[in-house]
């Protein structure tokens, strides 16, 4: 098993009530596997799990991305920095 810290920001952090959650996943797990496990634990967070935007080590990745122990995973809420 590998250990990942998953960072939560803005609306996601408020929903879960903390800014980091630790997740244990089997070696070779993908981002998709992680999301499935997260949605089990925090159903509110992953009401639309297919659409979750994920960053690993400060870069956007797609859901097939294969995680490595020590990766910093972040769930990125919809970005909306100002007026349209």
């Amino acid at each position, binding site marked *: 098993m590998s250990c990942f810290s998953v*960072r939560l*920001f*803005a*609306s996601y952090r*408020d*929903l879960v009530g903390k800014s980091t959650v630790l997740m244990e996943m089997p070696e070779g797990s993908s981002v998709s596997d992680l999301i499935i496990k997260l949605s089990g634990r925090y159903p*509110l967070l992953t*009401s639309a799990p297919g659409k979750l935007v994920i*960053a690993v080590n*400060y*870069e*956007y990745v797609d859901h097939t991305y294969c995680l490595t122990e020590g990766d910093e995973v*972040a769930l*990125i*809420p*919809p*970005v*909306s*920095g*100002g*007026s*349209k």
Partner: protein
Amino acid sequence: MIEITPDKIDHDRVISCVRRDSNGAVAVFLGTTRNVTEGRKVLHLEYEAYRPMADNKLSEVVLEIRQRWSVENIAIVHRIGKLEIGEASLIVAVSTPHRKDAFLACQYAVDRIKETVPIWKKEYFEDGEVWVGSEFSSTHS
């Protein structure tokens, strides 16, 4: 010049930073906080950034602008933390020899920042607060 800062944005400083005697045009965008969202009165706002990812993404936008328009002089400052109504949350300034490039590059930079940079905005209303772009909102009980 790329900054993410809790300090008030000083647009004079940012414009001076990009202006060059060899350039005839400066295009500037200021994003300011609005007092009304969908008919609800906003009291104040809060911006939160995921750093250092947000810094990296801003650098990528600058790099992209430099490659697409051969623009050397671009500055971006994004404010975070608590903002009052009417304060600037974002400034983008671009200076170029001729004005068409300045406008194009500035507008493109603003669009890319809003798409790619992990910075979020929370609006505080009299009866609750909402993270903009989120389908969730919380209401004071």
